[in-house]
């Protein structure tokens, strides 16, 4: 299976700001019985590769199992708490997920994800490595499977409250 990414996605500045600054996105995958399962997760929008990066600990593997059955995924940006933004656009990204095959603990190449999306916005996450007991007990927190979302459509509601007509772009970035 090959992938091909377009060099950039042209989005309005306030939509890009939402993708950059909201602390979480609500990530939806398809559960075993076909029900959409949605959970808040931190996500990094990567302009240079026109994709989205997230990961999950093997201690919370539900998304992994769901995405192995169906790669269809969506990311909703609807909660601006902690972002500093007031009434930003509501943004919905639909796409296809690619999963890394291996459990990874190295942070090489994903430093910005950890600093800007996890450790920076969530100071309490430091407790997971704060002393020898926690480092022994919660090492699984740092055992991650990374997920790359290749967007197929990005929708947004400029006013942030659905009072305006939905705007959207199709993104033909995924070639299976």
């Amino acid at each position: 299976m090959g992938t091909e990414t377009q060099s950039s996605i042209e989005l309005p500045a306030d939509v890009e700001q939402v993708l950059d600054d909201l602390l979480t996105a609500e990530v939806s995958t398809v559960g075993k019985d076909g029900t959409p399962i949605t959970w808040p997760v931190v996500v990094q929008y990567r302009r240079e590769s026109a994709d989205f990066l997230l990961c999950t600990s093997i201690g919370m593997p539900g998304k992994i199992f769901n995405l192995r059955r169906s790669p269809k995924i969506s990311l909703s940006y609807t909660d601006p708490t902690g972002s500093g933004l007031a009434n930003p656009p509501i943004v919905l990204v639909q796409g296809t997920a690619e999963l890394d095959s291996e459990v990874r603990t190295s942070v090489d190449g994903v430093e910005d994800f950890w600093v800007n999306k996890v450790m920076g916005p969530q100071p309490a996450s430091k407790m997971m490595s704060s002393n020898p007991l926690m480092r022994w007990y919660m090492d699984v927190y740092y055992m991650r499977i990374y997920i790359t979302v290749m967007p197929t459509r990005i929708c947004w509601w400029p006013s942030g409250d659905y009072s305006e007509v939905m705007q959207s772009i199709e993104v033909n970035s995924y070639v299976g």
Partner: protein
Amino acid sequence: MWDEILDALEAHDSALLTGFDENGFPFSVRCMPMADRKNRRLTIELPRNADQIQPGKASLLMHSHNEDLWDLAQFLIRGTLVRTGDGHYFVPASTIGAPRPASGLDAIKTLRTIRHRGNAYLNHRNIERPSVPWDDIHRLQERAEEWRKQRKAD
């Protein structure tokens, strides 16, 4: 389950309804479910400009966090979205999570569950336990402190 759902509605201003669009991709929209206590279901008014969700399997997420991405509350209701002549209602089937932020004891239980599931993931696949590069983690935590200082200064 119904009492937990009522508690969640009281604790959150809105919920995120997720179903599927006509292409089979998940599609989510913020809404304000109203409890129909008599029928133990939730009445949902979909916004006119975001009504692509098809009837069928759906879920409702209510979640919150503070400015430091802590005091997390995450509550998901799985169920079915039904379209009627003049609107929609949601029939709950099961729930995941808790309507309000976890207490200290609940947080400890969550950590125990994460460790248990992580160990099971490794054991079932015969994966050797990978070591964590703690020096690298601590180096990133120092960078994160700088990130926070910079963000406050901005």
